[in-house]
């Protein structure tokens, strides 16, 4: 049964040093506020999983919290590279970063297999692809019926998943709308799940019959953090802060500038700052 609690407590209770953790969001509903709280609490030695690690994984890697990253696209979408991840991979700054790299199809299948309680995922993929040569977790399985050789990857089973979502109702059920990505699979694949939401409403009586709703008993903690996805977005609440994504490229270029930015904007703040950050982005959402 989900409990409503402050973000600080939810992170402290659910995320431990050395955990395998997914802060998911496929460009939408990325749980930035939760990740910033994890940064403030100084978690170490994490294995981060995410299909599209963007700014927030760049920040966590740059802060030296991450031992390993499992991913399928490590970029700032439409802008360029992740400069802190690059610095870690190329120069081991601030520490070496182990990477396990997949394709989107593999990661999506691996999350789904995790949610389904399976040990691995199979799909038709990686044909002629170089990742097979550099990632031992990409293997093959032969269909027992047709003999077709298919790709196989281990399922994703995080210790804890963090996502952002639009709404919780008073019972703690969660509504996810718009680009739902792998939010549902990431929650169901994990041992524990923390969801930050824009708001709490009385009930979901007016939502569509087939809406993506996660029942409260599938979630560990619910935290109300308006704006908690910024600079990602929450469909219906505020738009993606594309300018912030473009600015990040400059901030992350330089180690000193990055460190100063993190102190000012993350370490010296708390989650209430997110609500003010999205004020100017609410018009067209």
């Amino acid at each position, binding site marked *: 049964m989900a409990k409503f609690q402050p973000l600080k407590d939810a992170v402290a209770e659910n995320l431990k040093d050395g955990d395998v953790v997914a802060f998911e969001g*496929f460009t939408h509903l990325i749980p930035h506020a939760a990740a910033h709280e994890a940064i403030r609490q100084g978690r170490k030695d994490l294995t981060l999983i995410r299909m599209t690690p963007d700014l927030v994984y760049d920040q966590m890697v740059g802060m030296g919290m991450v031992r390993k990253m499992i991913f399928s696209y490590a970029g700032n979408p*439409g802008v360029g590279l992740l400069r802190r991840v690059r610095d870690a*991979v190329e120069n081991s700054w601030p520490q070496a970063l182990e990477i396990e790299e997949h394709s989107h*199809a593999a990661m*999506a299948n691996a999350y789904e297999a995790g949610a389904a309680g399976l040990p691995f995922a199979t799909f038709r993929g990686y044909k002629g692809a170089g990742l097979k040569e550099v990632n031992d977790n990409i293997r093959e399985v032969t269909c027992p019926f047709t003999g077709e050789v298919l790709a196989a990857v281990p399922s994703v089973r995080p210790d804890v998943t963090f996502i952002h979502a639009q709404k919780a109702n008073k019972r703690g059920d969660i509504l996810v709308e718009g*680009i739902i990505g792998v939010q549902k699979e990431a929650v169901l694949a994990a041992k524990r799940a923390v969801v930050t939401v824009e708001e709490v409403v009385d009930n979901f009586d007016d939502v569509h019959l087939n809406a993506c709703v996660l029942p409260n008993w599938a979630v560990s903690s619910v935290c109300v953090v308006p704006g908690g996805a910024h600079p990602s977005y929450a*469909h219906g609440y505020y738009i993606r802060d594309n300018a912030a994504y*473009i600015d990040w490229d400059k901030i992350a270029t330089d180690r000193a500038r990055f460190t100063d930015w993190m102190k000012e904007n993350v370490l010296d703040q708390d989650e209430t700052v997110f609500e003010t950050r999205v004020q*100017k982005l609410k018009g067209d959402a």
Partner: protein
Amino acid sequence: MSDLDFTADEMMTIAAARALSNDDICFVGIGAPSAACNVARLTHAPDITLIYESGTIGTAPDVLPLSIGDGELCDTAVTTVSVPEMFRYWLQGGRVSVGFLGAAQLDKFGNINTTVIGDYDNPKTRLPGGGGAPEIASSCGEIFITMKQSLRGMVDKIDFFTSFGHGTGGDDREKLGMTTKGPTLLITDLAVWRPDPETKEFVVRSLHPGVTREQVQETCGWTVIFADDLTETPVPTELELTTLRDLKARTKAAHEGAAA
């Protein structure tokens, strides 16, 4: 090309847009492919189905998305599905006719690298990686590629096989069990290329207006083959140019305006 009233970039996008038809179900890569696909939709192919890997099917954005998951893609889509469904049912299920990809590095057989420059374990430059490309390249009916020509980008040997084109040519795809066509078209800022039916090596079929054979060779890392019946790419029409420029202007205002 200074006497012509369009840029090489614009010619590239417009030539790429022309390759798409109204009946296509197109999986859209971010960047240059996204512009071309939307120009096609706004000109000669109003009913084209554009799919982005974020799960948006049949989307019709008014501005180009910065990421593959901007909200407008969802707002204007026929439907938005989860990412596992996107890759399992729609892509792997064989429902996509064209995949449109960009490339950091490309070889003459349409193999693409967007993963690393240099050695994988000790890279000179770590690039974002493949995302959806490995399976887009194998599961779509055919693949169109668009990129600007440069010696750094169009190379004799790519550093990493992010996605498989025609391998070392010939029937390499069939040998790996692939039944899709793979790369059938390359549109650069200088020319339109198609693979030779037998060797699968890209051959220049048309030069964009004002472009010389020498310019194509100087910006390409392999020895370029030109078709015997080499033609000139038709110049952009006023409608094509206006559509592209309006789209770019709306996009620029939208992306820069968010912080204002």
